[in-house]
């Protein structure tokens, strides 16, 4: 059952990821992206990583997607306003993207030992208690330093977004 569910979720995730790129309407893209995040959440639940699953829903499908939709509505994008790329650029993009795809498929198809290691596997590894232990014991330093990253980003955002004297109000 779990295997079928895995394949179903994976196929749905890939399909909706493709639709994000291919759909012409940006709002549809965002909706497909949300669908893809839900598929990923399903994967996390299959892996018994409940905390990650919930955080994925809250942060990505919740907060970030709302931000996306807000920006799209703010910019008022129209499908007909979109200018196409020149054909040469399209050609180059297709060639280089296709090359990357061919290389990756050819390399990853040679990967043989992809079975999961059953011995020593702890089904509780993804639970929030274990996650917290790992985060605050082994990865404490990067965890703390990530706050510097956010601080720098925050200071930068305030610095760039601050209204200057003489600028108009919205």
């Amino acid at each position, binding site marked *: 059952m779990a295997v079928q569910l895995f394949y179903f979720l994976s196929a749905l995730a890939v399909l909706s990821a493709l639709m994000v790129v291919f759909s012409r309407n940006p709002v549809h893209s965002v909706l497909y992206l949300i669908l893809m995040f839900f598929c990923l959440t399903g994967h996390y639940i299959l892996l018994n990583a409940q905390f990650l699953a919930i955080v994925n829903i809250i942060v990505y499908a919740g907060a970030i997607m709302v931000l996306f939709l807000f920006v799209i509505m703010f910019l008022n994008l129209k499908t007909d306003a979109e200018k196409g790329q020149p054909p040469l650029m399209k050609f180059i993009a297709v060639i280089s993207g296709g090359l990357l795809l061919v290389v990756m498929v050819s390399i990853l198809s040679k990967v043989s030992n992809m079975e999961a290691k059953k011995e020593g596997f702890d089904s509780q590894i993804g639970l929030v208690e274990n996650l917290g232990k790992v985060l*605050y014991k082994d*990865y404490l330093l990067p965890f703390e330093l990530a706050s510097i990253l956010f601080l720098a980003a925050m200071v*930068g955002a305030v610095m760039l977004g601050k209204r200057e004297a003489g600028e108009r109000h919205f």
Partner: protein
Amino acid sequence: MPPPTKNCPVAVKNNHVQNIKPASFLDLRVLFFILQKAIIILSKLLAFSKKSYLCKLRNIFHQKMLSLILLSVFGITNLFLGFLRQRNIVLFASMAFTFITLVVSWLDMNGTLITFDASLNGGMMANDKLSTSFAFVMLLTALLIFPLSTHYLKDKEAQPAEYYAILMFSLVGALMMVSYKNLIMLFVGVEILSISMYVLTGSDKHNVKSNEAALKYFLMGSFATGILLFGMALLYGAVGAFTTEAIQTYVSANKVVDSPMAFLGFSMMLIGILFKISAAPFHFWTPDVYEGAPSLFTAFMSTIVKTAGIGATLKFVTLFGFIPLGASWYPAWYKGVAIVVILTLAIGNITAVYQSSFKRMLAYSGISHAGYLLMAVLALSPVSSVKAILFYTLAYSVATVAAFGGLMAVAGNKRKEEYAYFNGLGKTNPFLALSITISMLSLAGIPLTAGFFGKLFVFLSVFERGLYFLVVVAVLMAAVGVYYYFRVIIAMYMREGNNEPVQVSSGTIATLLIANILTIALGIAPDLWLNWFM
């Protein structure tokens, strides 16, 4: 300074601050002293506790972390100093902070500042000579760059406290990139450095070019980060761990053909890092971003970001190409990197010839210097190429800072950086002309300057590895480089110009003097630097 009025509390406060200037400096010094002691006492207290969180925190203090913590705390302090009306304090404080960090990171290398149980290694940061030397180069460069920013102190729209704070945060990222022992640290370091740079690139809000550069840098950088992360995930999938030891063990235990996923991950991660040092063919963002960003931050980007990137590349590549090379994956990837080196050298040097803007020329010259540095990385001999890279980064950083300092003085408020601005500078301001000349000579690699020995050491290390073809290409490209560096010198001394005389601020004079003295000292006695650290 407007005369203080009784109705205006701001002016009164302003006056007040200026009156007690000596005392406030004393206070600052006392503050540093207390801060330092507080950290030491705090960490010693932590050493006695046995709880896991505190234990780990204690390790952070030991494992080279003191400089990271100091930089972070000082950055936050800087933000608060921005409330002061007296903007000079922020500049002096930032320089003092950077200097303290420099001293601390130097003392901390031998573990003499705070000694802890080394067996409780957090395993996240290396505390070796290599990372300390890179940290030294970067912090020294930052110290040289800060005095160039005096024009921000007078500019009403600029926010120097925020700029310095973000620069300090970005230094945290840079230190992480050169001393990581876990790929997570590399990633967080790259992100801290990049995000700070995106912001600073766009800090000139009313300049369309700056906005465009920031957006371009952000979009391209995000894609590069995505590729880096994708590669990291593949590598993790193959190795099962993020630590450098585990990766090295995996590489020595497996052949390339048996582990395609790890090799794909390695390649993608390498591409992500090479983007940051703007090696061709991942260099397309460089000229526009370097030109659009305010010159101060361009100087920062082309020196510190490049040094951090090359340090990260060296450490990362060493995992996959350790000695003996036959046992590692070196034969599988060195040709690809050699192609990148040749492309970088050719594109950087040849395109630089056609530039009419001095700043854009410096951007392309930055690309070409990334090529020389990458060449030494490719040589990958444990002693000579590490020495060459350390020497070259110092020589290049110092000369580039001097060049940008000269450019900022000459271009002033004009938003273009044409060669024509340099016409006749040799007569109107001989000191500035001489220092730009010295930095250009060093970048070109003329003997008796640091740049010559930098190139020499790089070529020797590549020669040792037996990649003769690369040396030939690099020497040819260095000859091309002489052409465009000398264009500036010719403009300054041989062209007649009717530009106004250039005013140079005292901060710029100090930077130029120190940078030029260092350039010549390293050019006369290169062992000075090599024996000091290595």
